[in-house]
């Protein structure tokens, strides 16, 4: 049963880590692009 838990946790960790990384990159890019664009971003 430990193996099962290890598999589920590792899978979750990988997916969560990648999602966090992608979201973080998005946020930092959006922040650096923001001033120039302003309200046009619709």
């Amino acid at each position, binding site marked *: 049963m430990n193996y099962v838990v290890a*598999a589920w946790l590792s899978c979750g960790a990988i997916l969560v880590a990648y999602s966090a990384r992608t979201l973080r990159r998005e946020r930092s*890019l959006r922040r650096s692009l923001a001033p120039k664009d302003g309200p046009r971003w619709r």
Partner: protein
Amino acid sequence: MRYPQASGSSRLTRVLGWSALAALALNTWWGLWLSPPDVVQGQFVRMLYIHPAVATMCYAGFGVCALGSVAWLWPRLRSPRWDRLAVAGAEVGAVFCFATLVTGSIWGRASWGVWWTWDARLTLTAILFALSLGYLALRRSIDNPHSRALASSMVAVLMALTVVVDHYATVWFVTLHQNETLFQPDPTIHGWQLATMLVSFLAFGLVFAWMMVHRYRLEVLEERYEREGFTSALEARRSEALPERRVEVPAR
């Protein structure tokens, strides 16, 4: 770009994200709790509710990458959208490929006693992962968008071929790996196990879609950033030459 600037989410990603989480929760509940242990495999059968779905999403990622690459290569269809789709598919596919290898390795250790074995399916999946790392490295090393798309599309086609051979590896070669469970003429899986497995495909499918949308948007942002960087560098240059005049940054 139509989504609000302040947050990273849009209607689409909110819907996808929350339903993915809900489906994952359902998968975990059914997979780890409600569904019964297997007659043959015991508790290890619960790996069935992660590994095949994750592997399928890995294939899906590289499939999307290949589709995007071919579409980009097609003269009349060429557009940056296809290239963005390709890189999103490749990166998300690579993540799922890594997860496939890790979960598969743990399952292998549990049921066969070894973390790795050199059978066709495992080896091909490892090669696929290496290929995807090469694809991503290649993309990072070319700045010109056109050359980058062209070069990576060629690797993408090769990755797609590997996916096909990998998928049929259990049929074409003698392997230790299990054969197709779902699409057999007389499936031996049913009841809770079948239901949970289907839920797992739904759950990871939604996760896949959510990741794809975000990665695609990230690519759009990266492109804007590169363009902006270029434009503002040009402007900086111009205003150096004419210090009295302030040049307006053209709105885009």
